[in-house]
C-alpha cells in the first residue's frame, strides 16, 4: 500500500521554482526600497534647510540612488535565473 501511495505522490511534482523566486525577489526588494527612500528623504531635508544647495544635492542623489537601486535590479535578474531552473 505504501508503495502505491509513494508512486502516486511522486507523479504530481509541482515546480516551486517560480513561486520561490518571486518570494525571494520580494524580500530582496525591501532593503533597496528603504535605502532609496532614505536617500530622497535626505535630499528633501537638505533642500528644505538650504534651497540653493538643491543642484548639488540632486547630483549626489542620482548617483547614490543608482548604486542602491542596482541591488534591487540584481534581485530582479536573480529572479529570472531562479525561475528558469
Amino acid at each position, binding site marked *: 500500500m505504501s508503495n502505491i501511495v509513494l508512486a502516486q505522490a511522486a507523479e504530481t511534482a509541482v515546480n516551486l521554482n517560480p513561486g520561490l523566486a518571486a518570494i525571494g525577489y520580494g524580500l530582496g526588494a525591501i532593503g533597496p526600497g528603504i535605502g532609496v527612500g532614505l536617500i530622497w528623504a535626505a535630499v528633501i531635508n537638505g533642500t528644505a534647510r538650504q534651497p540653493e544647495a538643491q543642484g548639488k544635492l540632486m547630483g549626489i542623489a542620482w*548617483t547614490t540612488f543608482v548604486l542602491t537601486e542596482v541591488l534591487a535590479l540584481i534581485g*530582479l535578474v536573480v529572479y*529570472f535565473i531562479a525561475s528558469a531552473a
Partner: protein
Amino acid sequence: MGALVLAEGDTFTPPGAGDFELPPIFLGVTKPMILIVLSLIIIAAFFLLASRKLKVVPGKGQFAAEYVYDFARNGIAREQIGSKDFKPFVPLVLALFSFVLVNNLFGIIPIFQFPTFAHIGFPLALSLFVVYPVYHYVGFKRHGFVGYLKHATVPPGAPGPIYILLTPIEFLQKFVLNPLTLAVRVFAAMFAGHLILLVFTVAGEFLLLHAGGVFKPISVVSWLFAILMTFVEALIQVIQAYVFAVLSANYIGAALAEDH
C-alpha cells in the same frame, strides 16, 4: 486572472525573458546588432555635422552638441577625475555617455523599440573591455604595479585590524565586482523597463481582443499606463546613461588619485 481565462478560453502568457530573443533579420544579423551600428552612425554624424563651420555665436546644432560635450566634460569628467588630469579622458567619457544614452533611448523610439542594452552582452563588453582595462591601466601606469595594488586595496586612515577585512573586500570590489555591477546595473534597468512596457502593451491587446466583454474597457487603462511608464522609462534611460559615465569616470579618478 482566473476570470479572465474563463471568459474566452484564451490564456494570457505574460511576456518574459524569451521575448528578448529577437530572430535574425538576414544572414544571422539581429535587430540589436543593427541598432548598435545605427547608434554609432547617429552619434558620429551628430558630432561631425555639428562641429563643421564652428561659429562664435552657435547655431542650434552646434549649441546642442556643445551642451552635451560640456556636460560630459565638466559635469562628469572634471568633477570625477579632478581638474588636473581629466583632459585625456574626456573623449572616452563623452563617448560612453552618448553611446549608452542613444542605445537606451532606442527603447522608446517608435520604430526601433528595443533597448540594445537589454541584452547583457553589450554592457558587459563595454564594461569589461573598455572601462575595466582603462582604469586599471592608468592606475598601474601612475603608481607602479605594487604601488597601485596597495593604493587600491589599502585605503588610508582606517584602524589597524580592520585591514584584515577591508583589503580583501576592496580587492574584490575594485577588480571583480565593479565592472560586473556596472554592466548589470544598466542591463537590469533596461531589461526591467522594457518588460514593464511589454506587459502593459500586451495586456491591453489581450484585454481588448481576447477577454470577455466586461474587460474590454480596461485595455484603455492598460495602454494609458503603458504611456505613463514610457515617460518614466525615458527618465530612467537618461539617468542610467549618466550614471554609467559618472561611475566610469569615478573609477578612473579613484585609480589616478594621489594619496592623501
